[in-house]
């Protein structure tokens, strides 16, 4: 039982990170129907910026907590700027282009960002400074750390904040209107460009927060870390029903737990035939099965063709 509990905790933490990254995908998708493949790279930039800023400040003698905070602020600001620039430079000119065009642009941007990061931060794996004291808890035989707790709490709080923003503010209303029908929304006086830019900026800020959390959790960073993470998060977003905020969160957490339980129990369930090397398959198989029965994800609305 303690093993089961431990696996749930493992999955929950991993899932919270997926969820936070998935929100970035889903926000952009919900409003403009674009898979922003470069979002994983934004997360990576967030982590690396924090390493540079916090690392330098700590070396300069600043208290760790303060330096960490400065690092996070810097990461969020840099990523917001990056998100804004991505939208302005790469995606806005393509708004009326064929559907796959922005997808290729996104892939191109992803390659560009990775290589820029490689030139700036080098090819080596980097260690993330430990910003939080290492406190271990034990509960019912399961181990967890303060960092894990904070990750879950921060992502829950961020999601709550985002929901408030989308459903309780004017900007949120404008976003929902744009998602429904951009043309009508603009007739109602919504500045579409600003709304879309806002979605990118907010999504990127969330990405930066996710990046910092990935960094503090694993204490490792690399210029290629964004790709896999982005892919998983995107899967999570689709699982929950892409375009749906709550769906992205639940999809993320679900994916994390599926992965943990899959790795933990797939071997026993199949009598040792399949092992944890099929961990990734497990996630995809669940996704395929879900989509077979609910073609627009667990929480996705039954929309018409979005071609």
């Amino acid at each position: 039982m303690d093993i089961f509990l431990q696996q749930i905790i493992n999955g929950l933490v991993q899932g919270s990170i997926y969820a936070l990254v998935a929100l970035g995908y889903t926000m952009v998708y919900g409003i403009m129907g674009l898979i922003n493949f470069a979002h994983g790279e934004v997360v990576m930039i967030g982590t690396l910026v924090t390493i540079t800023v916090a690392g330098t400040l700590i070396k300069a003698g600043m208290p760790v907590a303060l330096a960490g905070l400065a690092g996070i602020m810097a990461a969020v600001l840099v990523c917001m700027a990056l998100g804004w620039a991505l939208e302005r430079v790469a995606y806005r000119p393509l708004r009326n282009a064929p559907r796959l065009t922005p997808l290729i642009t996104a892939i191109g941007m992803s390659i560009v960002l990775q290589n820029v990061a490689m030139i700036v931060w080098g090819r080596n794996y980097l260690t993330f400074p430990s910003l939080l004291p290492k406190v271990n808890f034990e509960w019912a035989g399961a181990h967890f750390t303060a960092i894990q707790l904070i990750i879950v709490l921060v992502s829950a709080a961020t999601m709550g904040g985002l929901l408030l923003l989308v459903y309780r503010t004017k900007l949120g209303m404008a976003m929902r209107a744009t998602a429904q029908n951009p043309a009508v929304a603009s007739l109602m006086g919504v500045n579409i460009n600003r709304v879309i830019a806002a979605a990118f900026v907010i999504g990127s800020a969330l990405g930066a927060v996710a990046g910092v959390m990935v960094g503090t959790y694993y204490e490792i960073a690399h210029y290629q870390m964004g790709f896999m993470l982005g892919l998983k998060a995107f899967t999570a977003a689709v699982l929950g029903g892409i375009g749906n905020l709550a769906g992205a969160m639940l999809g993320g957490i679900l994916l994390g737990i599926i992965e943990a339980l899959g790795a933990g129990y797939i071997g026993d369930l199949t009598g040792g035939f399949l092992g944890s090397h099929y961990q990734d398959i497990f996630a995809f198989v669940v996704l395929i099965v879900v989509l077979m029965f609910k073609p627009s994800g667990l929480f996705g609305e039954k929309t018409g063709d979005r071609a």
Partner: protein
Amino acid sequence: MKFEHFFRSTVGIGLTAVLLLALPFIAALGGQAWVRILDFAILYVFLALGLNIVVGLAGLLDLGYIAFYAVGAYTWALLASPHFGLHWPIWAILPLGAGLACFAGVVLGSPTLKLRGDYLAIVTLGFGEIVRIFMNNLNAPVNITNGPQGITLIDPVSFGAFKFSGTTQIFGFALSGPQKYYFLLVALAILVIIINIRLQNSRIGRAWQAIREDEIAAKAIGINTRNLKLLAFAMGASFGGVAGGIFSAMQGFVSPESFSLIESIMILAMVVLGGMGHIPGVILGAVLLTVLPEVLRYGVGPVQMAIFGKMLVDPESLRMLIFGLALVLVMRFKPAGLWPSPERKRELTEAKP
């Protein structure tokens, strides 16, 4: 339009043929590496045309296309290598590889028929990864694919005693291995192009385009969308299977790392960058995206030296950076691709800004 007429005229065909025949010898002046690059370019033309059926004609966004390529490659590798001690001839393996890939296409296609657009993209992506992961892990409990170690010493393509590896003398010409593969690939590519053109202008092709433009309307006018979608997957997959077989034979070694997601994405990029649904465009895209990184490999260093007098940035890091930028810029200024089909171009220019 003019280009198309040119290619259909006798003179055009003649000139193209001469050019195609001469190309490997011209490339060889720069070294056999260039011939090999050409080989890969044509192999990707092949793959891109196969994917074009699925994405360009039928409008189904497939991000796991490499899986079919992998199936073809592994079919060849398993049936023509010391791994199982089998050495089947090409005329048995290549169709079998295509058939297996086709079957895989149907297997993938059937559960995903209901899905649209980006949901389909992620499921196909997942499928591609599933195939790769299986290839990577099927060395236990029974060793089928030899896992991550890959399969070595794969037989080259051969017709009877005529082997495609190594240099042979024909009519006084010395033909190197890559050059022989070039001619084989060109022959196959021409076949694929003809099939593609025939398909595009057939009932099936038009039905696919109808599905691409509006699936519900297509259904309403009596098109069997389910079967046609499956057919698109199956056709595209078979081309991938054939390409995989040749790849396997050409390399002499396969391992799962050749079939990663990034390859699928690259092939998709070729199709879109060139001009989706337009055969000359797709060919252009495939050739460009294969050759560009290699040209940069040769060019980035010396150019930097010439401009700045020293290396500012590693040529290796800059190479991919420029490649990424090129993707972004082409899409920015040519949203429909470098060489879109005339209809598509018209649609775009007519669309309101």
